[in-house]
């Protein structure tokens, strides 16, 4: 996964604490078609464990996670 991932929608979740990041990402992912990718940017450190748990439960796929300082970027493919 070194080539750039094509992002269909960006979700800005900066500054939002639990449970907002997962609540918003679960809503946001429904706004793209199955197979498309969203980029979710969170500053909540809990997201690092919460997003994978959410993805496993909801049947979606985290393609890549990037951390830059306090900023966490998730590339999530809608599979369900």
């Amino acid at each position, binding site marked *: 996964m070194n080539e750039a991932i094509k992002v269909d929608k960006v979700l800005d979740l900066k500054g939002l*604490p*639990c449970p*907002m990041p*997962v609540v918003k990402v*679960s809503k946001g992912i429904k706004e793209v078609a199955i197979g498309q990718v969203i980029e979710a940017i969170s500053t909540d450190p809990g997201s690092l464990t919460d997003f994978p748990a*959410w993805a496993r*439960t*909801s049947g979606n796929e985290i393609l890549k996670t990037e951390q830059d300082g306090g900023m966490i970027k998730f590339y999530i493919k809608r599979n369900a």
Partner: protein
Amino acid sequence: MQNLEEQFTKLKSQIEALEKKAPENKLSMIVFSGDMDKVLASFVIATGAVAMGMDVVMFFTFWGTPVLRDKNKSAGGKDMMGKMFGAMLPKGTCEVKLSKMNMAGMGTAMMKSLMKKKNVASLEQMLEMAEELGVRIFICEMSMDLMGFKRDEMIDYANLTYCGVAKFLEEAQNSKIQLFI
């Protein structure tokens, strides 16, 4: 050959019966507490569960009941005890207090301002979000009657049901998760 077919039909009906018994992807929660912190935790779990794809039911009973009163509404026709409970119990989400460190309201006020600063959703916002996400709320009819609350003074909420313990248990029985808060 016919024996096999018989066994197959029998197995199929057994599987169907099992499927009916299997718990649904649902969370049933009893909100017994009327403390701000515990009600907040309840809503965090409820909204998080919807995000995880679950169907969510919250059953408000006892001290949890007055949390669902509408601060802008009032109801007449109460007896003396009803009036007393009405005056002494919080009128809605904005009047509930912390279970610890309330310090005559100072602690709760501090917590509220801290939550605002840290961007943590308030109870009012949580309730609104729960409604938007389709969280179902049940209100215990017995608590309403005991504390003298009238339906006219309760919040407007899309998925609100007044019910008893049987209705909650029916939901809880086929839920994967049941919580008491």
